[in-house]
């Protein structure tokens, strides 16, 4: 038994030292955390609106056999084979879910559970069977290790080290995500809101569904090294879900989700520093805490406001609902 349940809080060690003594480490970890959360959050907004949150969960888990197989076939941990393995796993996951749903009486949520747990299990078995030849750390795949980011190879451009490879890669993917979002905003909006209308406008909803799924696989595979396959789902859901409690407009939802991502990265890092804990875990705990605060205290839709509003207007609302009934 430890004497103290939590380590003593030391402001200097938690907040100052990382930026003064270890700036080069801290900045890359926080930037990577932000890029992962923001990119996942951006695509996550659309995933949530399309009620595909569980599909994101499924893909993040079925990546495991995908990247393991890619590794076994190529014997390398290069980005490209990993990406291809992950995307293939994503496509197989979605195709299997659809196949089960359409050809049996199994409902979509159960189909998702069947597909991702069995694929994930295959991955776990593969890793343990080929443990000698697989240079994949199951723990790292599951939980990620963003703390290693500063130790990765530096990208050198024109003789200058511009940053660790995973960070630069994630930044590139974030820029591509923003570019795609700007280019296809209206298509994403209308296919998410009303697939029937989209089709009647000549915008193929199926194409965007698959495109989004493919890009989701890319985002998940580039994020998993840092936050792990399990916590990717937190970064996919929390920024968008929290933002949606605060605003009614999609553009504002997207901006807010980026803002929350920065908050998770910074506060999550400091929480992990204080507790000497997993940084990805810290980020997700912060994400959960921020969501809870917003859920309770949101200015218009928060639990608290609902409660206050209800107790103040009880008489009035029952009267108005009566009036509505007589009117109809």
């Amino acid at each position, binding site marked *: 038994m430890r004497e103290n349940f939590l380590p003593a809080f030391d402001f200097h060690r938690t907040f100052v030292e990382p930026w003064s003594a270890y700036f080069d480490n801290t900045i890359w970890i926080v930037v990577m955390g932000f890029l992962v959360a923001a990119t996942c959050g951006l695509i996550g907004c659309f995933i949530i*609106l399309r*009620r595909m949150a569980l599909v994101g969960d499924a893909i993040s888990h079925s990546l495991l056999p995908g990247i393991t197989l890619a590794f076994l076939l190529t014997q390398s941990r290069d980005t490209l084979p990993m990406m291809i393995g992950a995307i293939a796993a994503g496509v197989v996951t979605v195709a299997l879910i659809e196949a089960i749903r*359409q050809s049996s009486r199994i409902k979509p949520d159960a189909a998702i559970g069947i597909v991702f747990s069995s694929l994930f299990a295959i991955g776990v078995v593969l890793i343990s069977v080929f443990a000698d030849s697989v240079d994949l750390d199951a723990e790292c795949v599951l939980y990620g290790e963003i703390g290693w980011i500063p130790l990765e190879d530096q990208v050198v451009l024109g003789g200058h080290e511009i940053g660790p490879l995973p960070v630069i890669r994630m930044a590139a993917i974030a820029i591509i995500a923003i570019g795609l979002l700007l*280019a*296809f*905003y*209206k*298509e994403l*909006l*209308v296919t*998410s*809101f*009303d697939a*029937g*209308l*989209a*089709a*009647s*406008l*000549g*915008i193929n909803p199926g194409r965007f569904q698959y495109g989004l799924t493919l890009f989701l696989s890319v985002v998940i595979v580039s994020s998993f090294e840092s936050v792990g396959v399990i916590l990717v789902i937190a970064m996919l859901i929390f920024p968008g879900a929290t933002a*949606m409690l605060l*605003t*009614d*407009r*999609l553009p*504002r*939802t997207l901006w807010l989700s980026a803002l929350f991502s920065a908050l998770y990265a910074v506060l999550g890092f400091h929480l992990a520093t204080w507790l000497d804990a997993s940084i990805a875990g810290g980020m997700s705990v912060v994400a959960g805490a921020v969501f809870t605060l917003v859920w309770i205290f949101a200015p218009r839709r928060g639990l608290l406001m609902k409660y206050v509003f209800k107790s103040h207007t009880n008489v009035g609302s029952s009267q108005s609902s009566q009036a509505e009934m007589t*009117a*109809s």
Partner: protein
Amino acid sequence: MQEAKTQSIAKSSAKSLPPLEIHDLTVAYSKRPVLYGIDLEVPQGSMVGVVGPNGAGKSTLIKAIMGLLPVASGWIKVFGKPFQTSVTRVGYVPQRESVDWDFPVNALDVVLMGRYGRLGPLRRPSKSDKEIAMACLEKVNMHAYAKRQISNLSGGQQQRVFLARALAQESDLYLMDEPFVGVDAATEAAIIEILRELQSQGKTLIVVHHDLTTAPDYFDRILLLNMRVTAFGLTKEVFNFENLQTAYGGRLSILSEVALSRAQKKLEGDTHENISE
């Protein structure tokens, strides 16, 4: 520019290609046919009420026309061409419950979506698109609610927003799936007025409708559907008890029978008046 476009559209429709032509259409959900051997030619400028019992394939027909469902056999032509090539000429009003009203968009955003088909890829709605959307909202008397998030609108208001969006599509053929469900009387009257105005502009409307009592008042043509076409033609010719009995089988409730006989009497009254004139 805009005028020239409208004129060319008017010209091409003057060539009297029917807005909707369906030949021997069969649509099946996982091998179970829902629509069977549908033959249909809808003349320009008509307002067709699609009537039939639950599960008759009314919504399926609308979705099949828009290419949302695979066609097992037969073909559908919209203005003489496959749907995909006449996309901008077709406006669509889906069933209200088919979308998530908690979606983070306001009424104006929804109406603007009606312009997307004309924009093409990579282009954003322009200022004039926004003006058109606003004008459409005004037409359905909803401009005061343009910035309101859509879940904060009543059922009738939501339906008006959908109608405004269809207006923003500036189409020649409108497909509407139960636009009168769950709306208040005022909205129903407002909607039917706009539909009549569209018809008077030479547009063609195909409207899925569930209320047999109002159907003969609203539509000049009726399509009675129950997997097959039971009857299709001018309302006064096909909207009779025998046809409805065939379409609905034993499923005509007493209430709708009473309503029907009332509607029929009224129709007969109209024809007598016509004769006496």
